[in-house]
């Protein structure tokens, strides 16, 4: 057997290169019209990422507005019930707006202000990033437009109303499959048309360089806090990390801090929907092929002619046909293992965590819980699995109820 590539990589923090490449993934695949704006963004980000005043303001907002640090919590009853390794949770569900998305939205919102932009735009699928962007816009006094697929608007009425309450304009996207990927296309079109006054806050670690690296950097606070907290509360680092992967921002936020700690096993969990074998899934890393979409080369769900296939997953936040390029690379290097969980398994885990721990997880995060439960079974009770509980499940009440034939 060949030596895994990850043993030949000395330092995961040297990526991406200056052109945004993670190995053969990532990069800058956009029309020439966006090359100028992306260069401006890259330069601004490089400047402010080292600006002590900017970093101080970010830190203050994360502390006082978002409520960081988010705790880590030992799910003792769930762990005992499984009878294997200990399951610990990083509680991103306790952040303001209910998910990890706000970490990135705050960072990019501050950057937009520094760049003198007065209008921010965002794409959203389930609405969580849209709500985070609208929240930040309200907090900073910026105009906010959120693009959302017409299908998603129907499925997520409550979040649409939240965004409107926050003062954002929610624009329905009727092109293509009328879901997240089309919302992203439309936001890009808006950006290229209004580049002079507009900042585009991408919600995940996808898109053209520098977005995958920048969004990651704003999310790595999750892993940095977790390292300190594990040492304080458990006296040692975890043996395994688990997080769900759609675009992959909460996962990279937890994983990145630990990539060079080779003794820690890392697992990303994709949505298998009805099951990989049915074709109705959202698992490009497990069942897709490398291709180019939304500005970067990564694993994608596309057909034999190269057209993008609409993904399928109970959790709207995992319902994306691509994945952040760094994950594609971490898969290829073998550093992170990418697994899948079906809708049915995720819903079961949703109920477990709710009933046994009194924590209602987002359906996205329930995928991570479901996999952690499986993983824990074969492990020693001394071992620790740290799961990123990326969001809370309030937004999913109607989805879970509908599966049981109820309306809420």
């Amino acid at each position, binding site marked *: 057997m060949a030596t895994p590539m990850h043993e030949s990589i000395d330092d995961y923090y040297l990526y991406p290169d200056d052109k945004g490449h993670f190995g053969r993934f990532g990069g800058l695949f956009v029309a*020439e019209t966006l090359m100028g704006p992306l260069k401006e963004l890259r330069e601004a980000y490089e400047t402010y990422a080292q600006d002590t005043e900017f970093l101080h303001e970010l830190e203050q907002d994360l502390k006082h507005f978002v409520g960081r640090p988010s705790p880590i919590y030992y799910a003792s009853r769930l762990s005992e019930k499984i009878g294997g390794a200990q399951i610990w949770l990083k509680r991103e569900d306790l952040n303001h707006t209910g998910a990890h998305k706000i970490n990135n939205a705050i960072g990019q919102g501050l950057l937009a202000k520094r760049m003198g932009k007065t209008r921010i735009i965002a794409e959203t699928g389930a609405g969580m990033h849209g709500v985070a962007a609208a929240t930040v816009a309200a907090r900073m006094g910026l105009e906010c437009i959120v693009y959302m697929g017409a299908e998603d608007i129907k499925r997520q009425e409550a979040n649409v109303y939240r965004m409107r309450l926050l003062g954002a304009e929610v624009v329905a996207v009727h092109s293509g499959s009328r879901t997240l990927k089309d919302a992203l296309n439309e936001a890009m079109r808006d950006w290229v*048309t209004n580049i002079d006054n507009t900042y585009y806050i991408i919600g995940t670690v996808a898109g053209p360089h520098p977005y995958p690296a920048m969004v990651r950097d704003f999310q790595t606070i999750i892993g940095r806090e977790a390292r300190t907290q594990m040492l304080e509360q458990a006296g040692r680092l975890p043996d395994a990390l688990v997080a769900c992967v759609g675009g992959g921002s909460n996962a990279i936020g937890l994983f990145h801090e630990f990539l060079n700690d080779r003794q820690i096993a890392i697992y990303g969990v994709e949505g298998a929907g009805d099951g990989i074998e049915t074709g109705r899934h959202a698992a490009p890393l497990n069942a897709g092929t490398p291709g180019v979409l939304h500005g970067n080369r990564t694993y994608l769900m596309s057909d034999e*002619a190269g057209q993008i296939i609409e993904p399928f997953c109970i959790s709207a936040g995992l319902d994306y046909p691509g994945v952040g390029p760094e994950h594609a690379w971490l898969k290829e290097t073998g550093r992170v293992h990418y697994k899948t969980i079906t809708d049915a398994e995720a819903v079961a885990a949703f109920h477990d965590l709710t009933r046994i721990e009194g924590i209602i997880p987002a359906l996205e995060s329930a995928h991570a819980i479901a996999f952690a439960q499986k993983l824990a079974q074969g492990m020693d009770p001394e071992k620790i699995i740290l799961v990123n509980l990326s969001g809370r499940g309030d937004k999913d009440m109607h989805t879970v109820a509908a599966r049981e034939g109820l309306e809420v």
Partner: protein
Amino acid sequence: MSLLGPCFKQLAAQNKTALIPFVTAGDPVPEFTVELMHELVVSGADIIELGVPFSDPMADGPVIQAADERALKHHVSLTDIFTMVTQFRQQDKATPIVLMGYLNPVEILGYQRFSELAAAAGVDGVLIVDMPPEEAGDFLPLMREKQIDVIYLVSPTTDAERIKLISDQASGYLYYVSLKGVTGANTLDIDAVAKKIAEIKTISDLPIAVGFGIKDGQTARAIAKIADAVVVGSALVKQVELAQQDHQKIKIKIGEILREMRSMMDNSNGSAE
């Protein structure tokens, strides 16, 4: 051997500006595309840009997005498009054909196979919207080997340094995007376009085509005075949408627009210079 070089040389000798219509392959149905391409030539086209439909056309406005969706209902693939070009070439061996589209279908087919099939079909140039020169390292040599021109976009925000970089890699022509926005958008500032083209001309010897936002004879004439080629896309594709499945009507309407542009452009060159 690409027909683009000889085509521009000949037009320059006649003091004419190239007229480049864009239509989406397979719109509204695949069987109609070759017939429409011949009609474009009859109506005054010097070069044809054939759009390769994609599920996620990020740089296109609503008109071309809708055309892509119509074509994709019939699952039009690159392989189908090579067949169309092959058929077109049976009757027309002179009109250069440029494929314009997005990278993923090309990636999935494979660069090597793409270059072979494109050359065999008689494609002269390729413009891949989301592959800037920085990312074309593996693609370019294969296309050069088959003598197919690789055309790049230049935008209002492209600075002198990048114009040079792009021009060094490009052949055939440079496609200047005349406004900040997507295809088919509204406002076109002729003076600003003229200024930028003058800048590009100091850096590059390639012919310059102007597209995005050219809708009528009037604008075509104004652009013809300052550029080497005029690209018209959304205004034509809109006619496909309006005529729905009436193929005769599509040909008549598109023919009318092209003839008007042709005559305005030619007269403009004659009288102004």
